[in-house]
């Protein structure tokens, strides 16, 4: 079938072309702005702690270290095993503290409790404390992200 007039006028074609071009231009300008606003992830892959300072902490104590911008907590269990946590409450991100006499981790912001293994046992925290992997390599302790989770 032949139509008398063009359904798609020259003006519409040009408007579409220019509009699309303007949109693309805007997106290409917005992209670097967004990149600059949202910086990349800064969590470390691993943290090296000297065995001298951290290797022989007494049992049932916790020693903090810097896990990027967050506190990490190295804990020696009664058995002598070393475990590490990200010392940040899973509720709303406040830093937790270890209370050795109660054998619990405590978050003062909204009264969240975790047992000595970091399991959430009271208050608002929805998940256990995040665990980190501790390995002894020569003189040093190496703290890494847990492979799972």
């Amino acid at each position: 079938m032949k139509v008398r007039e063009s359904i798609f006028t020259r003006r519409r074609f040009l408007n579409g072309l220019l509009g699309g071009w303007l949109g693309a231009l805007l997106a290409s300008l917005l992209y670097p702005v967004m990149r600059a606003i949202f910086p990349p992830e800064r969590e470390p892959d691993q943290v090296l702690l000297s065995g001298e300072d951290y290797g022989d902490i007494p049992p049932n104590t916790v020693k903090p270290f810097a896990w990027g911008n967050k506190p990490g907590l190295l804990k020696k269990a009664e058995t002598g095993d070393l475990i590490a946590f990200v010392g940040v409450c899973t509720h709303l991100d406040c830093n937790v503290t270890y209370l050795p006499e109660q054998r619990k981790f405590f978050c003062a912001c909204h009264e969240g409790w975790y047992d000595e293994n970091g399991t959430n046992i009271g208050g608002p925290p929805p998940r256990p404390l995040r665990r980190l992997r501790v390995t002894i390599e020569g003189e040093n302790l190496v703290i890494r992200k847990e492979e799972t989770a």
Partner: protein
Amino acid sequence: MNFRVCVKRMSERFATWLEERVGLRAVADFLKNKKVPQNKHTIWSYTGSIILLFFLIQVATGIILAFYYRPTLEEANKSVARIMTEVPLGWVIRSIHSWSATFMIAAVFVHLLSIWVIKSYRKPRELTWMSGVLLLLFTLAFGFTGYLLPWDELSLAATKVGTDIPRSIPVVGVWVTKFLRGGEDISGDTLSRFFSFHVTILPLLLLALVGVHVYLIQKLGMSLPVGADEKEEMRRAIPFWPNFVYREMVVWLILFGALVTLAVFLPPSLGKSADLMAPAPEGIKPEWYFLFLFQTLKIFPARILFTTGDTVAILLILVGGILFFFLPLIDNRPAERKGKVITWIAFAFILYAVAMSIWSLLG
């Protein structure tokens, strides 16, 4: 020709010269003829200019504080301590800035709640209301970003919690948190970002929106009480200039006196410098205007059904905020109809907020 006549003629010529080029007579005429209704609701029409007064005080004191404040991890707390101890009258300036923030937010709450109860958001003032709700949001954002700047233990903990809250919002939440913090965690970048929000982005947004808000108020005129006789109201109305402005000035002076008195006798404290690695201090509380939200979050259990209690609480708060924003479209009855349910919801909200705040302070 004596000197006085000469000066008079010169100033007249200058006025004509300026008028030809700028054309401000229309604005002057408008203000000269503007009238303010006098009725049982007139008292609430003072609240708007009260907000403006405190905002101007915030701008003036804020500029002075920014001369000395340094938004870095090492220097933020120290520079505020320097303002409090070394800068001449710095402690008063900071105290006025802090108290005026409280006064401004209180005035915003009173302003919005009064308009809610007397229902002057109804047609044709829907957009005035919506711009007002956004202004409330910006005002609270001012308070929230300003709270971090002294960089003490309490302000760090409050900001950690506050910036983590959006994370519970599906899809966009994580990005909101990242945007606010400048990364996954709070760091020095968060501090400089908050400073930037507080002194550049928010003032620009607020000023632009105040422009829209005030324009709409001038265009639409003051609302009248539900069921008022329009002719009678017109007869009773008083001129904006100078009658109403002078009355406003009396209120401003009283409030300014109260502000300075409080600021001198109860200056804000400054805790020791925040440490990103230290455990959160006990008894953290946000500023008073966030207490009812803080307490709402606290009373939700850890888990509800298949999700966390916080997610539910935050989504409920978000829905409440959206309903509040769209209030004029929900209650879209004509201006002369009463709206008892809406009034009761307003009072129920006030009761809830006050009760939750008191509970939070006691608990």
